[in-house]
């Protein structure tokens, strides 16, 4: 019973990861690749870890660790994605030609890298 559960969790996880891999290879621009991979991989990794947690139920410490890893992956992956995405934007990484909107354009201060919320402009527009 557990074996089947573990097996299917593994399978789904592995497929999620494979999709992430296909995604990073196929996606036409950096932001899309980033978007796809971060979560698919986190999901896949999480599922595989979950199956490990089930597999090692006899050893509490191991299960804890597996859960801790899941927790960590979900915590850190978005942060890392945010940082590298931001950096990519700074160095002017090109977006796909099919991109339909860029609200970030012109919002960064060239010198300080401070990001404005755009509220001031909105207010100005309203005035």
């Amino acid at each position: 019973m557990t074996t089947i559960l573990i097996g299917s969790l593994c399978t789904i996880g592995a497929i999620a990861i494979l999709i992430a891999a296909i995604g990073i290879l196929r996606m036409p621009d950096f932001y899309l690749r980033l978007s796809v991979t971060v979560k698919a991989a986190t999901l896949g990794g999480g599922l595989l870890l979950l199956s490990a947690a089930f597999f090692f139920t006899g050893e509490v410490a191991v299960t804890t660790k597996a859960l801790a890893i899941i927790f960590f992956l979900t915590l850190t992956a978005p942060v890392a994605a945010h940082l590298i995405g931001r950096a990519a934007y700074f160095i002017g990484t090109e977006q796909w030609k099919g991109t339909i909107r860029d609200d970030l354009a012109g919002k960064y201060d060239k010198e300080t890298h401070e990001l404005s919320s755009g509220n001031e402009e909105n207010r100005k527009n309203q005035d």
Partner: protein
Amino acid sequence: MVKQFLMNLLLAFIWIALTGVLAYANFMFGFAIGFFLLWVMNLNESDRRYFTRVPKIISFFLYFLYEMIRANVQVAYDMITPRFFMQPGIVRYPMNARSDFEINLLSTVISLTPGTLILDVSEDRSVLYIHVMYLKDKDRFIQQIKEGFERRLLEIIR
């Protein structure tokens, strides 16, 4: 609320000590029993937030899981089919979330669902810039997030 949570934890550990089985399932079981006992004991108390919050957390978690799987499948389908039908863009999203913790949680959640990714938070912490894969209508997207993740999340935290 914190007091009740700690009490609940304590009860769970006592349960483990009593049964002598140090296993996850046993802990969960002890926690559930404790929760139930505390719920019964606190029926007449004024501050009952703890007891409404736990089910909310669980429901948020389930919602998140559903969203994630749904979006994942959508993206996966797009990925393995030869033609892309996405319409990506970067969207400016004004948040209701204010504290660092709230912003973090919100952005994590948004980022973890496929199709959306937080690129940055504005300096004054009022706006999120989100990269969206399937951006049909900007306003509808903002509406979705507001009604979906942000409302549910703030309900739990605040």
